[in-house]
């Protein structure tokens, strides 16, 4: 795109139809992700940040529904695409890493098989090439024993290894935009920082545009260039990381920062 | 929403049919137009007509009347067999769950073993040995159908034991057995009721199969099952002899199954609490 923005989200609304009425989980969200940057969305649980991420790839399950808005990726509105075009973008141009590595992999297929699937769905290559690619990216994700992990089933890997495998799977088709939804929340603290190091490394090497979702301001501060603060389905404040951290304008942002400082 | 309404209507019609059958059974002499065992050699195998709405059988007996009286057999066997099964199941499950340890393992092994026998084979074998009588049939069906309830009760008790011992250790002197029973009844009564309702349907199917094969309710006592036995011999000649008794079996069992499922759905959300 001309102005270096890879993702433009405008007025995104995702609502839930429940017995007790309509829950407006995402209620008019605007933000941009610039090419090559890491954009963070921070907020408490229930703020709607995960749903925002899911809405981008239209992965919202009923009773949730994307009600209105636009999600423009490079120059196409993803929300208007037909199923096949969207499928081609998922996993190849835009990839997503989920929060719970334990449940994100299918327990009855090997790690290697699931990564190869991602390759074969988008690249017209031979099986052997796909296998090489899978191994390559498992190595890049710094998994201890890539050959073993390739043949292992998800339950045989530790949490950290599974997350690395997921990252490998997300990157195997060299996407342009990577969405990370709380990628380290479910992991031990030591493993967390290892994964963050890995993400740093990938970010630098690949010059990937990244959307980083987290409830942890510390993690956001470490990883992101620009930040948006979300609360109850709306973005309360957004701007450069330095500005948000040092000179927050909104009360809510202030209280969020205070709670982090209190822990530190 | 729509689905719930439809489901409720189905449950309501199921209940209505069951009540109708209970009325048939209770007031059979008043409802049946003819004596079910009255032989009428002038009207053998007549098709349904105004005089005999379901037709007559090989001995001229009115099929509708026999069906009405047959409801007594099917329903009573169903209820009593299930009653026996539930009692045995509660006893078994309680003992196994409460005592735990070796007694539990042995008893649950026993359940596994019982489940290995094709139930129908077992019932047939026992009836062959003991001779068919309504009483024997009830007991045998009950004695081969308690395993599910036993497992249910045992599972409930095991969950309760976890909770009760935590509480009891704080409230010194509380007798766990009594507390378990007190908490067991409200929790377990739902699933047991569902199991029992579905079990009545199953028992009716088994009884009618036994009677159909000739080792259940013996003629001339009318049972829907043994009427089908005659239906087999008149196949192709008297369709009414086969269609009507079978239809009643189908609808009655269907009604119990629908009711059971409705009960289960009704209890589901409460279980989540």
């Amino acid at each position, binding site marked *: 795109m001309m102005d270096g923005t890879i993702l433009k989200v405008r007025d995104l609304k995702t609502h839930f139809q429940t017995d007790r009425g309509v829950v407006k989980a995402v209620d008019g969200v605007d933000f941009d992700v610039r090419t090559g940057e890491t954009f963070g969305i921070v907020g408490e649980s229930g703020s709607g940040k995960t749903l925002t991420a899911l809405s981008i790839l239209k992965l919202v399950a009923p009773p949730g529904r994307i009600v209105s808005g636009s999600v423009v990726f490079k120059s196409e509105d993803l929300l208007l695409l037909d199923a096949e075009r969207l499928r081609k973008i998922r996993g190849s141009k835009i990839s997503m890493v989920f929060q719970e590595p334990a449940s994100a992999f299918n327990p009855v297929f090997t790690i290697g098989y699931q990564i190869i699937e991602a390759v074969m*769905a988008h690249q017209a290559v031979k099986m052997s090439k796909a296998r090489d690619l899978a191994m390559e990216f498992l190595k890049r994700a710094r998994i201890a024993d890539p050959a073993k992990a390739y043949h292992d089933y998800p339950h045989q890997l530790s949490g*950290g290894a599974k997350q690395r495998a997921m990252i490998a799977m997300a990157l195997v088709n060299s996407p342009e935009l990577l969405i990370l939804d709380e990628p380290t929340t479910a992991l031990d603290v030591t493993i967390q920082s290892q994964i963050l190091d890995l993400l740093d490394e990938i970010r630098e090497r690949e010059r990937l545009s990244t959307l980083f979702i987290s409830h942890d301001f510390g993690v956001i501060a470490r990883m992101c260039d620009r930040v948006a603060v979300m609360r109850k389905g709306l973005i309360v404040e957004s701007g450069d990381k330095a500005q948000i951290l040092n000179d927050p304008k909104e009360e809510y942002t202030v209280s969020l920062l205070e709670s982090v400082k209190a822990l530190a | 929403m729509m689905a719930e309404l439809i489901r409720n209507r189905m449950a309501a019609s199921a209940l209505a049919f069951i009540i109708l059958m209970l009325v048939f059974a209770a007031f059979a002499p008043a409802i049946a137009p003819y004596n079910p065992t009255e032989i009428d050699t002038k009207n053998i195998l007549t098709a349904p007509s105004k005089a005999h709405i379901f037709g007559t059988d090989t001995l001229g007996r009115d099929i509708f009347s026999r069906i009405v009286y047959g409801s007594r057999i099917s329903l009573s066997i169903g209820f009593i067999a299930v009653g026996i099964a539930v009692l045995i199941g509660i006893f078994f499950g309680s003992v196994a769950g409460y005592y735990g340890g070796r007694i539990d393992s042995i008893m649950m092994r026993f359940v596994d073993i019982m489940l290995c026998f094709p139930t129908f084979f077992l019932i047939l074998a026992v009836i062959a040995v003991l001779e068919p009588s309504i009483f024997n049939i009830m007991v045998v069906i009950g004695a081969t159908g308690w395993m599910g309830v036993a497992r249910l009760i045992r599972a409930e008790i095991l969950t309760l034991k976890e909770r009760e011992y935590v509480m009891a250790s704080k409230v010194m002197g509380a007798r766990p057995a009594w507390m378990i029973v007190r908490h067991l009844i409200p929790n377990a009564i739902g699933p047991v009721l569902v199991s029992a309702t579905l079990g009545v349907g199953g028992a009716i199917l088994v009884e009618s199969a036994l009677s159909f094969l000739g080792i259940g309710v013996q003629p001339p006592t009318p049972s829907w099952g043994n009427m089908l036995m005659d239906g087999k011999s008149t196949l192709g000649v008297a369709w009414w002899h086969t269609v009507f008794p079978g239809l009643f079996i189908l609808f009655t069992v269907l009604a119990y199954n629908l009711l059971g499922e409705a009960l289960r759905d009704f209890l589901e959300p409460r279980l989540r609490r």
Partner: protein
Amino acid sequence: MLRYIAKRLIGLIPVFLGITLISFFVIHLAPGKPTDIQTSLNPKVSYEARLRLEKLYGLDKPVYVQYADWLKRFATFDFGRSYVDDRPVSQKVAERIPITILINVLSIGLILAIGIPLGVIAAVKRGSLADKSTTVFAFIGFSMPEFWLALLLMSLFGITLGWLPISGIKSLDFEYFSLGGKVLDVAKHLILPVAISAFGGLAGISRYTRTSMIGIIHQDYIRTARAKGLKESDVIYKHALKNAMLPVITILGLSVPGLIGGSVIFESIFAIPGMGRLFYESVMSRDYPTIMGILSIGAILTLIGNLIADIAYSYADPRISLPSAREGASE
């Protein structure tokens, strides 16, 4: 894997012993002695002859010795001789088992081939007409007296329409058919029995598959599969279905005794020379050795069926046979 099988086999031994105990118990429920039938109807049989007969069957020994005998004979499949024609029970059963197994296997095949797709469609198109009609069909299947359905279908297809034969497994002029003709003939004879036998199970499996699939479709890994950009058909029929099938395997194993027991009914109705019909005939003629033999064999078949289901399950679900990671293992 082999270790798993071996473990299961060893665990089966107590069950096997239990089966022998229960069948022994059943035979001794009879008031009087099993030999009474042979002797009491014949006044010419003297007291000594009766004693000799009882000695032959070991009925004069104490109960525990009788049980030990029974156990020994059970292990060698020696169930004595039939009262009806004095042939060894095991021989009579061996003649009949293949057909019963054939019908049951075909039945299971039919149940899987129709039941699973029905369940999947009902789950994927939840709430649609297809879903609702599958549910209705399932309920009717649970509630249907199979022998009644058999009578109705016999009447319709056999008598009224004359399309299908209604008894036996071969036509009278079987010997004159070509090989193809023979296969077709047997197939025609088996259509109704297999269909009836499968009916109830079909209802159950379709409903069970539906429930299983609905639970699976909401799992995280299905979302991951979609996020990867897989085709929707792959998401459903590869990722979801493979997981949904696991409980179905267990259910199949549990339905084996029901299928075996049900064979009594439709083998009798369709005059098929199988084990179920033999059982029925033995019951009617109070042929106790055969009754006990078939009861025991039925239980053993169930045991085998469960074992096969278990092995299939452990093969299908890698979490069972392969150990999980220890913390900090492969990083």
